[in-house]
């Protein structure tokens, strides 16, 4: 090698280096993630992908399950159901998927009969101090800032459904809601944050989202405007630990727990 170019990599080595670096890179990343983050892909870790509105309830159920079954690892990940669905389609490994509407799990191979685990309804909510003074649905015409979910998110879909009913009764109110919408959030958690921060005057969330919260309050809607929803769980893996957790979440005992945490009691036809 000429002394003038001491740090040049020989040209013929370049393809070899490129070929070599792919496994090196993979190994490095795997070592980093397993070593530093401590994530283990062992069979006893069960990953649950759940709709954003299930966050608190599933954390509590997971705590109960862990107490009853020591040594089991459960990871609950929540986001908009459409986001979780996209992640699963792009190869994310979820063992159990619980979207806020059953159509989000359509086409996914379930290793067990899909089961409705909880039920909910759409609620109109305001910040606790209700700055715009919203007392019923007509008042939305003077809510300067309404926040809803994106149309692709379950909460956005259900809000559209509710708006269609409102439209048939009072087109002006429906128009005002559309005109006063200032943001479309990717999940109900985003809507709830806007309300809790007082940045929005009103928003559509789920009834269970308002359970035991002092920073947001519900505006009661008449029976005819009630939009009912339900959560159907699918089992996406054959792992015994996943099946055990699936059975626990879908059990009668868990359903009662959901009801005690602000979820609507499912009617017999829904389950």
């Amino acid at each position, binding site marked *: 090698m000429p002394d003038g170019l001491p740090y040049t990599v020989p040209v013929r080595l370049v393809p070899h280096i490129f070929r070599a670096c792919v496994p090196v890179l993979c190994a490095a990343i795997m070592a980093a993630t397993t070593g530093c983050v401590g994530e283990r892909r062992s069979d006893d870790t069960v990953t649950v992908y759940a709709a954003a509105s299930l966050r608190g309830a599933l954390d509590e159920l997971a705590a109960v399950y862990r107490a009853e079954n020591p040594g089991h690892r459960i990871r609950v990940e929540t986001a908009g159901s459409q986001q979780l669905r996209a992640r699963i389609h792009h190869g994310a490994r979820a063992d159990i998927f619980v979207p806020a509407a059953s159509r989000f799990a359509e086409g996914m191979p379930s290793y067990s009969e899909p089961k409705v685990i909880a039920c909910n309804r759409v609620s109109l909510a305001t910040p606790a101090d209700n700055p715009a003074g919203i007392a019923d649905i007509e008042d939305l015409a003077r809510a300067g800032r309404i926040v809803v979910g*994106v149309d692709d998110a379950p909460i956005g879909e259900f809000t559209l459904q509710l708006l269609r009913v409102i439209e048939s009764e009072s087109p002006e109110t429906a128009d005002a809601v559309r005109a006063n919408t200032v943001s479309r959030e990717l999940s109900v958690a985003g809507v709830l944050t806007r309300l809790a921060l007082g940045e929005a005057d009103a928003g559509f969330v789920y009834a269970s989202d308002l359970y035991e919260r002092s920073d947001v309050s519900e505006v009661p809607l008449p029976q005819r405007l009630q939009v009912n929803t339900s959560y159907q769980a699918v089992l996406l893996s054959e792992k015994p630990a996943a099946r055990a957790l699936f059975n626990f979440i879908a059990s009668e005992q868990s359903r009662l727990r959901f009801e005690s945490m602000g979820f609507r009691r499912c009617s017999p036809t829904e389950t």
Partner: protein
Amino acid sequence: MRGRRLVMIPAGVAAATLGVVLLLPLAALIAGCSPAELIAGLRHPLTAPALRLSAITSLISLAITIIGGTPLSWWLARTQRRGVAVLEVALRVPVVTPPAVAGVALLLAFGRRGVLGSLTGAVGADIAFTATAVVIAQVFVSAPFYIQAATAAFRDLDEDQLMASKSLGADSLRAFYTVVLPAAWPALAGGAALAWARAIGEFGATLLFAGNLSGRTQTMPLAIYTALESDLQAAQALSVVLVAAAFGALLALRAVERIPRHRRSPRRS
């Protein structure tokens, strides 16, 4: 020689690995999007409003950054007081602030319940959820890039030339146009290009502070994030446009950076 090669091979592997990590995602983004798909993606209903909003807000942000950032940088570069160094560092913090933190900070400052919120609310000018909020978020994250470049350029000025122009009777403004700008403009343009590219890519703070509404506050990065779950093709097409814009800005920056060098040493070219 053998010893040298022993060092070179791991170094080459490490360098090539880093190169793959940096370039493969960009290559995949562009390779995975045929011209037909690009056109289809550009016709997505979210695309046109997002492109328009991004173009307008990022240019307004850039104007605010240059108009306010130039005198601010001049003052930072020319003031020898103790507190100024601290201020200069503080003005750089937004560069390393996580987007979510920036969004929360902006809400606490300009939101309805924020420091200025009660004030602006009193005159009926709510900022959050408007295009104004988009611009504020962009300025917050992008202006430091310009200020940093401009401050450095103003520090590097030739003191003798400045003194000479002043002794010949030029007032400060005239000295700025005749001496400072000709010497510093490549650095200023570079800082401006970086700031613009950062503004157009702004995502996290905008999402938190300005919300996400097509046509009003949904810029390109927000449209990409929103479309990602429903229409990957549109998200990809928009991403290609964004990458192309950033690449263009950096290319222009490089071209600008080369100009003075050629002028100073014409023999080299």
